[in-house]
Structures are given as structure tokens and as C-alpha cells.
């Protein structure tokens, strides 16, 4: 049966859902600490770069997108130093979970997976934070797709 989510994201969801609250927070911290691994690297060239500071986030966030010959997407995300821990964690989750997905798959990922990762309480308290990076990634994919059509 096909799942709603890309396979790698589904794996992460399964990982989080089996955890009690304390371990879920520890896992979020671990993902947050590894967010730097998904930053852009020297020498890499990207198909699309979207760097901006939005009202919804406390610092600048840069989304860098590459689309390979098979249509698979690869994200790098640069986070400013004031970006909150939860946003860092979601960045790490999404860069791993959406790796290799198609543009269409990313744009159609339903947001309802977020509470399964961070828990309903954190979603309630920080709704914009937990959805922010996914929104930016979807926007980057949409923009890239539009450019491809116009070219």
C-alpha cells in the first residue's frame, strides 16, 4: 500500500512515533544538533537558492535546491544563529526525509506528519516554527517547477 509520505520521511515518522515523550525530545535535540550537516558546502552549485529572512522566523534561512537527472530533489539549508531549536530539528528531519523525492512528492507532503514527530503540545505552542521549513522547501520546489515550465 502506498504511503502518503516519501519512504525516508516515513521511516523517521515511525522512529519518532515509537518513542516516549522524554526520548522524543532527546531525538529532536539530536536532529537539531545535526542540522549543520545539511548546510550548503563550498564548491556546490545549486539549481535554486532562496535565502531570506521572513517574519515567521527569528533569523535568516537559506534553502538550496538541486534536482538530479532522475528528478530527485536534494536540499541544503543554511540557518542563521538565532533560529530556534525546533526549526533546526525540523530542518534536519526534512533534509533527510525528503532526500531523493520528486518535486511533486515534496509539494504534496501533507503537513499532518508534523505532530507525529514533535508531539501535539509543541505544535500547539509553536505552530509557525514547526511548519516553517517545510513551507520554504515546498515553495522552492514550486518555484523551480515554474521555471522549468517557462524555460
Amino acid at each position, binding site marked *: 500500500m502506498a504511503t502518503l509520505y516519501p519512504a525516508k520521511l516515513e521511516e523517521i515518522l515511525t522512529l519518532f512515533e515509537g518513542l516516549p515523550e522524554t526520548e522524543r525530545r532527546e531525538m529532536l*535535540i539530536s536532529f*537539531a544538533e545535526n542540522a549543520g550537516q545539511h548546510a550548503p558546502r563550498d564548491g556546490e552549485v545549486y539549481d535554486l537558492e532562496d535565502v531570506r529572512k521572513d517574519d515567521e522566523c*527569528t533569523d535568516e534561512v537559506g534553502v538550496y535546491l538541486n534536482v538530479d537527472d532522475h528528478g530527485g530533489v536534494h536540499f541544503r539549508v543554511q540557518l542563521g544563529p538565532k533560529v*530556534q*531549536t525546533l526549526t533546526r530539528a525540523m530542518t534536519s528531519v526534512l533534509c533527510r526525509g525528503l532526500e531523493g523525492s520528486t518535486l511533486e512528492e515534496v509539494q504534496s507532503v501533507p503537513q499532518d506528519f508534523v505532530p507525529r514527530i514533535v508531539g501535539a503540545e509543541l505544535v500547539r*505552542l509553536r*505552530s509557525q516554527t514547526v511548519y516553517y521549513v517545510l513551507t520554504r522547501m515546498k515553495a522552492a520546489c514550486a518555484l523551480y517547477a515554474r521555471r522549468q515550465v517557462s524555460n
Partner: protein
Amino acid sequence: MAFYSLPPTTPSTPLLIIAVSNKRPGKWDDFAGDRGCPRLEVAMSAKFAAYANPEVLVDRAWLTEHLDDPGVRLVESNEDILLYDMGHLPNAVHIDWRRDLQHQTVRDYIDEAAFAEMCGKHGITPETTVVFYGDKSNWWACYAFWVFSLFGHQRLKVLDGGRDLWIAEGGPMTKDVPAFAKTNYPIPEKRRDDEIRAFFADTLAHSNRGLPLVDVRSLGEFRGDITHMPEYPQEGVLRGGHIPGAKSCPWKTAANDDDTFRSRAELEEIYEKGLGLKKDDDVVAYCRIGERSSHTWFVLTHLLGFQNVRNYDGSWTEWGNMVGVPVEKSAE
């Protein structure tokens, strides 16, 4: 205890000796003063000494000496929900403003029994000196300080510069969560709502009488251009503007770029010369939900010595939604 590496130490604040004892110079020493508060005995920074209540602030040097002091409980309070878990000062406990200080159903603070239980859980007694610090220039630390003040806890301090300055100066951090023996904190007789807290009716009467009101939100919020803080969620306010008669003075005006509080002279310039407030004024401060105005309440009450400052914690999310209340939209 596991520490992770941090940047090298920078020189600490110069000290001014203001009294002499047989103890080592350059130290602080706490003991119960006339108000039942810890009192400065030996020395403090020149900056602190100028404040009305210098005992409410500590610096890195003082805290370094007291990290393992059983009479001191270090409390981290942040806006970033997961920041404590990323690392905190050794022996610091975490008090979250939403989870620990607020009633989980009614829009209100915890009651006296819940406060006693929370303190007991962290090994706090009425004699414990509680030192708050946190992110965002100690904004949430001041909020927790204010809530502890609501319940009459006397021995309260704030780490000047908060979490970020501590880290910038190379202070140790850890992920170890300390466990302290549970204490039996006596249930406070009452929450001091009538002393340092203003409710909607109080604030409306205050506005109608033309008494001093300080709006500590951003200028955009004050003008009514936006109904939420830049970078933050819209929390359901239907009208923009400010309470009639309020003067704008964003809370961050009281903080330096390194998150420390501005000097007394600078604060007097801002609040007394700039806003025209007098120390015996009856002042109400407000923001959106009472958190930023806790910072201003702390500054006016403890650093400048104002005697009658209340925090209107209903703030704009209450006022801006009330049917029929007056709203002003003047520029300043």
C-alpha cells in the same frame, strides 16, 4: 558532570569594593537583609551598585562561585522550548513559562498550591536564593522572576546578560539534568495579584484616569500596523493599536546588545527623562501577553526603584479583543 567546550573566557566586569570584611575581596556574600532578601556584603560591580536594588543581579563571577551552592537554585527560563535540552548551566533546572507557570486550562497563573509543588520538585525552599537566566536578553527569566514575586518568594536574582553572555564568556555548559532532594515548600498564603499585577478592569480605570501606562511592544504593534510581534505568530488579536494614554517604550530599549541591562543612568534617561515617569508614579506596563512587560516591570521596580509598578498580563491579547473598549492609534 559532562561539559562541552566553549569559547575562551573574556575579562570579567571590574569590581567596586563598597564594604570591607574579613572575607576575600571581590566576592559577594548573601544573608537575610531587612526585607528578608539576600543582601550584598562585600563587593559588586560598579554598574550593579548604582541600581536601586543591586542585590537582584549577579554576574558571571558571582555565579561561578555559587554553581554548587546548596542555598542557590539556578533556573533557566527560555522562549526556545528545546534550548535547555541543548545544554544549560551546571546545576540549572528548567522552568518553562507555559508548562510550569501557567494554569493549563484557565488563562491564569498556577495557584499557590501548584507553585509550592513546583518549588518543592526543584528542591527550593523559601530560604533558597533563586537565580534566573535565559535567552532573549533574560526576557523569560524576568517573566519567571515576576511570577515568583507574585507568590512572595523573596530571594530572587537574575544573571545579567543571561544565557548568551554566559556562553560568549566561556562559561561551562552541560546536558546533565540535576536532581535535587524534594522539599516541602509551604503553600503561600496568597498570590500577590493585587500588588504587582493589573487586570483588565484595573487597566481600564488606569487609562480613564490618565495614569502612566507603558506599552513595551514594538512600535509597529503600538501604532496598530501589526497585531503581533515581528517574527512571531499572530495570536488572535482582532484590533491593533494601544491603550489610550499609553506611551511606547519597547522593552528591548532597556537591554544592551550583549543582553545585559543598561546602566542606571541610561535607564533613567529612557524612563524618567524620556517617558516622564516618576518613581512614585502608579505605573502599569503591558505588551501582548505580559512577558515582555515583565522585563520592563523588573527594570522599573528593581533597577530604578519605582515603588508601584504593575504588569498587565492580559495585555493586548485581552484588550485588543474586548468588545467596546477604546483603542488609540496615534504614532507614539
